[in-house]
């Protein structure tokens, strides 16, 4: 299924997040990621939703129904080729420090904390694929705990 990213701006009023998530539930999607943050303008929030859908018309329906909410100011779909999708992951890993350093060249990460000889808390930022690639390279079996922000996106 195709991954879709929908970017919406809306008034920061109580219940808006609830409405958006209820609509997505009503349309029977399972949200992949949903991030909310404040925008440049006070009182207006920015929401990025990713979900899986192949059918263009269904995506347009979701967009139009989001636009219908009185609080929603604008909604559009962001396409992969003309926008940046980024996320951050914080990972607690059981891995030897020297081994970790061998990934430096290919992946952009920062060590936040070293708990013991081979327990590190690191931060890795980038596209979803970049983060997945890093985790695969290090070996997912070494993950003790992971926190990912979900995608935030911006048009080029």
């Amino acid at each position, binding site marked *: 299924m195709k991954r879709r990213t929908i970017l919406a*701006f*809306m*008034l920061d009023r*109580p*219940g808006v997040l*609830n*409405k958006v998530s*209820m609509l997505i539930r*009503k349309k029977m999607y399972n949200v992949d990621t949903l991030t909310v943050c404040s925008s440049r303008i006070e009182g207006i929030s920015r929401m990025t939703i990713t979900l899986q859908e192949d059918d263009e*018309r269904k995506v*347009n*329906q979701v967009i*139009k*129904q989001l*636009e*219908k*909410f*009185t*609080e*929603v*100011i*604008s909604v559009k779909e962001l396409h992969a080729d003309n926008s940046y999708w980024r996320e951050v992951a914080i990972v607690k890993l059981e891995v030897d420090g020297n081994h970790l350093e061998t990934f430096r060249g290919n992946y952009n990460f920062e060590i936040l904390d070293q708990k013991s000889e081979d327990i590190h808390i690191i931060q890795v930022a980038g596209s979803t694929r970049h983060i997945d690639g890093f985790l695969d390279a290090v070996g997912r079996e070494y993950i003790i705990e992971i926190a990912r922000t979900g995608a935030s996106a911006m048009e080029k």
Partner: protein
Amino acid sequence: MNGKTLVVKALQEQGVKYVFGYTGGAIMPIFDEMDRQDSVQFIMSRHEQGAAFMAQGLSRASRSTGERKVGVCISTSGPGAMNLATGIADAYMDSVPVVAITGQVATGVIATDAFQESDVVGVMMPICKQTYMPLGADDVESTMHEAFYVAVTGRGGPVVVDLPKDVQNEEVSNGYNFDSSAFHPNLPGFLYHPTPEREPLQRAMYLINRSERPLVFCGHGVINANAGKLLQQFAEKVNIPIAFTLHGLSAVPADHPLSLGMMGMHGTVEANRAIMEADLLISFGMRFDDRVTGKLNEYARDADVIHVEIDPSEIEKNVATTVAINADVAQTLRAMLDDPMLTYKPRRRWFEKIEEYREVMKADLEAELAKGTGDGGGLLMKSIVHQLSKLTEGKDLIVPDVGQHQMMAARFYNYQTENSWFASGGAGTMGASLPMAIGVKLARPGERVWSICGDGGFQMNMQELGTVMEQQIDIKILLFNNGYLGMVRQWQTLFYDGRYAGTPMQSPDFGLIAQAYDIPYEKVENVKDIQPALQRAMDQKGAVFVEFVCDPTEVILPMIPAGGGFDDMIIKRPSPDKTAKKSGKEK
């Protein structure tokens, strides 16, 4: 000034004359204030659901009058608000502006499962256009005005304002200052495009001029925009027949030569066959719901679609459009009528075909109407409606309930007055008629109002006879008593081999019920008594209750089975023995 005075002030400024509802602990301050200020008249329903439908009736009936009103209903928290919910959901499905005010427990105890606390905003959010919960007295007035604005702007709908009890009593802060006349809600994304754009309009007119087998679709939006006359002029100018959705009925006189009557599941043969054959659908203010289209992939296969609709999210939802016009129906019709590009075309072959379709069921129907009784010997609903139509010359206001009688009222009353048909359509809520008729009568006191009910639906809200009695509401109640949940029985006859599970129903003595509420009553069992009884009901001042003993075997045809296509349309009555055979088991 405090929360409650500002609520009443806002109601007054919005021109609210009636508030329908029921009191209780969490809403008492506002009731007390309404009583003290005496600017709005409170009408007590006997159940909050009744109040929501009364508010709907007032909204629906007033949209064609010079003074368009938003119906207002009010309840206490918890169970009171929950009882409103069905009427709110119904208003949302039918795009009816309503403002509902609900009491809420005090802010200090919200979310502690306080006595009579329900999460009203949470429950109502998916079944209404907008919800509010002002958390301080300073926000009350702007919230109330925004609620009215949202309810009527663009596609109408219900709005719920949940008011914590302490906010009702709270004083506004020092220096509070609000000017309602200068107020405009800050909703930058809540846009509404009433004016059609030039380019799609031109493409639409090009398609219209070119079309050989076009149809005009008249939906609820035409009634809401008060555009019946414009639609009629448009159809006459281009010479295109009109098919109506359930809610489009009464926008144009039903016997207009271009009228094909209702479309969809229980629509006429001529409307539905024409849709199958059409090369262009010009649809105004409708949403192509499943009762209208049947199986989508078989729907109007050869037709281009022009979709004029105020709500952009309805465009392309169910049916692919060739030209989308997101605009007000009245403005779009005016723009096209003013354009010299639009031309008349005789379309003789198309009309010949339609005349053929009109004949398909004509003889059967005429025979039924002439006889007036069904296979079981009881009265036919269609012939009662037909007689009512003749007697009132199609000019009265009709408020049906939900079921077979509703479809009979849709099909066999000859609507002459614009906006004279008020039905629960999108939700199909049994019990809507009696309370809705009360609201309709209050909005249009000079016109005669008929509440046409089935024995099932009537009993869902018959407590509202109390309001009829108390307020001396002059409505004519016609009860079509067939001893069954008839519409469901019809499906059982057609699709469940005549097994009547859960549809036979024992009813009380309606004569005694009417008497208990001091409403004149009569019972009609013979065809010859229908007309005189209706005449007496018309002549009687005040409310009247007439019960008709109807035939349970009557079916409303044609019928397109749920999920079926137009090719599956049933036009022949099931053989009498198929329904009669099971009668031993039925009661």
